[in-house]
């Protein structure tokens, strides 16, 4: 499966009502999708399960957007 799709599905598993088709790659995911810190951790857990890539807390600033997440996982996947 394409990486972008894997990540979108990970987000959808936590926020099923989110309109991901309209999601701007550069938008702050937490603000745009109204994710709290618990949701965000659950998204990262789902991404780990789907791609094997684990994002440590110190790298959270790099994965605030969909574009950032894609780059981060692609570089390590």
């Amino acid at each position, binding site marked *: 499966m394409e990486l972008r799709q894997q990540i979108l599905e990970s987000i959808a598993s936590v926020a099923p009502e989110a309109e991901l088709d309209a999601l701007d790659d550069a938008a702050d995911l937490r603000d745009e999708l109204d994710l709290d810190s618990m949701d965000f951790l*659950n998204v990262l857990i789902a991404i780990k399960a789907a791609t094997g890539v684990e994002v440590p807390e*110190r790298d959270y600033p790099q994965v605030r957007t969909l574009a950032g997440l894609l780059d981060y996982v692609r570089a390590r996947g």
Partner: protein
Amino acid sequence: MAQFNMPSLGADMDAGELVEWLVAPGDAVERGQIVAVVETQKGAIDVEIFESGTIVELLVPVGEKVPVGTTLALLRGPGETDEQVREAHAAAPERAPAPPDRDPRRLSPRARKLAAELGVDEATLEELHQTAPGGVVTGEQIEAAARAQAPTAKPAAATAMREAVGAAMARSKREIPHYYLAHTVDLEPALQWLEARNAERPIDARLLPVTLMIHAIARALVEHPTLSGFWREGFVAGEGVHLGVAVALRGGGLVNPPIRHADRLELDALNKAILDVGTRARAGGLRASEFDVATITVTNLGDRGVDTVFGVIVPPQVAIVGLGTVRRRPWVVGEAVVPRRLIELTLAADHRASDGHTGARFLARVDQLLQTPEVW
């Protein structure tokens, strides 16, 4: 003979709608088992049975809305026959009021849930019901109807929940003499400790900052029991610190499922419990026995950039703790001004049950506990 009745999930609930039976006549059930799903103003709730036995008969069909206390199913114990149970039930003098005279529409549980979620109105449902083959309306038809409906139609479930929250908060503001306190806490030591600990752990064992806060709050409450309990004609101390966590639902609305005996849980267990109730609250998997248990509520608005929360107490509780956003700010340590991560911790409490002095000591104790997480 035992009866399984429509539970009350709070003083503001007068009826519930049966959306799914998870058992059938002849099934053996155990105390605590989830046997039905009921739609209420507080969302879809899993309902447990409080006695073990064998299901004799399901009295209320899926899709029917009945008043609190209505017998939903009959249960037989060891040595009883189905006939004995039915006779005893028929002879029982205390019966719940008859359900309102209403044509129960035949909807599959999925269709009913969808209709509520998508805000398909009663008139549309009636129309579907009239035209559907055999009167049975499917999920696909509901979805089609929702698409056809005006986009401004409000989701019915969210509206009911708004009303439930409104009723509870109006009562709170009308009856409870709130006092409000705020205390700034230096979270730097706790967060540094947490980050070092999380760096060594797999992602699914990572602790959330809010877990540390809740841990400290629960421990401090043990020493300040007049903040944890209920006001019922007078103060009644809670039997244990059951800490409600306010969870905002995505469709709108709010629930505060409890973490039982939060003061006794170690950090990992507490973290797991917080993730569990948060996830279930949003997915609609809360249990009936989880309502009206919490002895105090914690509301965390720190993810949305709020500095200070001025909480409204959830009746019949007597206090609510608010968490603001963790921010890096100048702070005096020794003789120097240094950047530290700070949080505004607030308390709104019922002046009938405690005084500001108690509340101030409680907040100071939470602060103190958060300075030394390594000794927890």
